[in-house]
């Protein structure tokens, strides 16, 4: 056996040698082919034009922006430097440690975690189970309560529509707040089209709901209270423990919280907070995009109607083969988050302090939107007499958002800030500073410097600002007469 395989190897090597020498004989580095033998297939000008158009022409939806083609960008030194990223609520960078945990499952360990008959399946399943445990540990849950999804949007849809539709014979009322993420509000809108009653609780000027109003809003036919943990635009933290206690007093009412911006950043304990359902997103906690989780309590059991039907994976709540690599990334991100939460929080708090102090020392009329005791990694500031969009345009070296990622393309003032009672002009002039684990002090100093310079420059050009300086009360002017 051994000798046979060796001799076969020798023969094969021999053949390969012969083949390669014969190739080298014809073409090598030092013998260019003569012009008469060179053959270039002419593809014709039409084809070339087509390729150029397909690849390089700006598409209609790029609004005239041009695409910078920068292959091998990092090798040339004269390239434009990348802007500073302060948009951690839109998404966070993937932690290199998370990528390292994922890569084996993008190479050799590609098995389907649901395959029960071979080692490829078993190793993937084992890693998925570990990931499930890490997610559960971060929120004080049992690993059997975790359902993997494609992200917080899917988890929110699944929880809200699922609970409402399952109980629709007896219960037809849902409570949520005016400052929820679009995917919660839109799920509720869909349900109201299906005949459900939805109460949108207002928030106080600091962005926190009133517990009395919540209690008063609960009716005998209420099935679900959905209130987010940390707001994505203002960082406001809702009193989850108190809300959970109120909801628990009413039998048959379930408490769902969208914790996409909270998990891994502030302490969340599903038992202490009496949370029945919760949404988690991978890419907000330094994990991969396209994966998330839903916590669905089993004791006492929360029943819901699945949106996706199929092979019965994930307790039948979310059929479909698990993206094991992404799930493993989410698990590793949760494991790291649990370990690093205290350090990250202290770091981000210090950065937020530095930013706020630095800006308010040199710019007047800056208002912080939302409760100052919110999550410090999200600082929402309004710069009076400056337009938020022009500020963003002028701040080319900083990647910032004037609101949530999904609404920043529109020029409407943020509905979240309006719900806090911000005047339209203040809502228009807001910027959200999202800091995280990888943000540095030097970046904050750089951004502070740029903001101060830009705001002052824009104000110097503004006639409104001139009037303010002269002591004219702008709000007393009746603009319509002009």
């Amino acid at each position, binding site marked *: 056996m051994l000798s046979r395989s060796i001799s076969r190897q020798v023969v094969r090597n021999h053949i390969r040698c012969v083949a390669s020498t014969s190739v080298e004989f014809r073409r090598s580095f030092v013998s260019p082919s003569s012009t008469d033998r060179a053959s270039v297939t002419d593809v014709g000008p039409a084809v070339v034009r087509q390729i150029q158009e397909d690849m390089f022409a700006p598409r209609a939806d790029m609004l005239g922006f041009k695409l910078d083609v920068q292959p091998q*960008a*990092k090798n040339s030194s004269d*390239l434009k*430097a*990348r*802007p*500073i*990223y302060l948009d951690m609520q839109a998404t966070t*960078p993937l932690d*290199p*440690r998370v*990528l*390292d945990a994922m*890569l084996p499952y993008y190479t050799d360990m590609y098995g389907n975690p649901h395959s029960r008959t071979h080692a490829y399946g078993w190793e993937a399943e084992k890693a998925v189970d570990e990931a499930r445990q890490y997610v559960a540990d971060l929120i004080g849950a049992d690993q059997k309560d975790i359902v993997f999804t494609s992200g917080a949007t899917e988890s929110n849809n699944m929880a809200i529509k699922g609970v409402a539709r399952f109980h629709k014979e007896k219960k037809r009322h849902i409570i949520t707040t005016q400052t929820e993420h679009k995917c919660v509000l839109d799920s509720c809108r869909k349900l109201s089209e299906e005949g459900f009653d939805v109460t949108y609780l207002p928030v106080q000027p600091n962005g926190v709901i009133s517990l009395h109003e919540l209690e008063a809003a609960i009716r005998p036919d209420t099935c679900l209270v959905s209130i987010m943990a940390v707001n994505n635009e203002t960082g406001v933290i809702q009193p989850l423990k108190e809300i959970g206690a109120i909801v628990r007093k009413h039998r048959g009412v379930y408490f769902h919280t969208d914790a996409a911006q909270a998990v891994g950043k502030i302490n969340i304990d599903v038992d202490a907070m009496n949370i029945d359902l919760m949404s988690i997103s991978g890419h907000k906690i330094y994990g991969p995009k396209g994966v998330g989780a839903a916590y669905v309590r089993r004791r006492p059991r929360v029943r819901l109607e699945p949106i996706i039907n199929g092979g019965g994976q994930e307790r039948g709540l979310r059929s479909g083969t698990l993206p094991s690599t992404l799930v493993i990334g989410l698990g590793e991100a949760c494991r790291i988050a649990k370990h690093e939460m205290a*350090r990250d929080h202290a770091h981000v708090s210090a950065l937020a302090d530095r930013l706020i102090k630095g800006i308010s020392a040199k710019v007047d009329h800056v208002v912080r939107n939302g409760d100052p005791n919110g999550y410090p990694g999200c600082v929402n500031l309004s710069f009076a007499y400056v337009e938020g969009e022009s500020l963003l345009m002028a701040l080319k*070296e900083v990647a910032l958002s004037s609101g949530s990622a999904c609404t920043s393309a529109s020029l409407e003032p943020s509905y979240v800030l309006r719900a806090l009672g911000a005047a339209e002009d203040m809502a228009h002039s807001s910027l959200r500073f999202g800091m995280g*684990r*990888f*943000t*540095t*002090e*030097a*970046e904050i*100093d*750089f951004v502070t410097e740029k903001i101060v310079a830009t705001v002052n420059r824009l104000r110097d050009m503004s006639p409104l600002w001139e009037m303010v300086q002269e002591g004219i009360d702008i709000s007393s002017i009746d603009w319509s007469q002009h």
Partner: protein
Amino acid sequence: MASVPSRAALLQLYSNTLRTSKSFSSYNFRNYFIRRTRDTFKSIQNEQDPDKLTRFYDEASKELEVLRRAALINGMYGGQKLVVEREGAVRLRGDT
């Protein structure tokens, strides 16, 4: 379980981890891992409990392997300069 790590072994691990952290190409990752390495090793500087020291050593050794691979991959795909880096290395090097 391995025996209690010596002071020299811990120092060696510290300098290896710090060197690996400095080898990240991306500004943000590099600065984070440098800061974190200093933090974590400082936190056990006065630790006497042999169990805790052993556990720390084992975990930090495993992490060093992760960081080594991660820094290599980061070097292959990442590391385009940020605007803060262009402003001058002097400002950044304050914490290095």
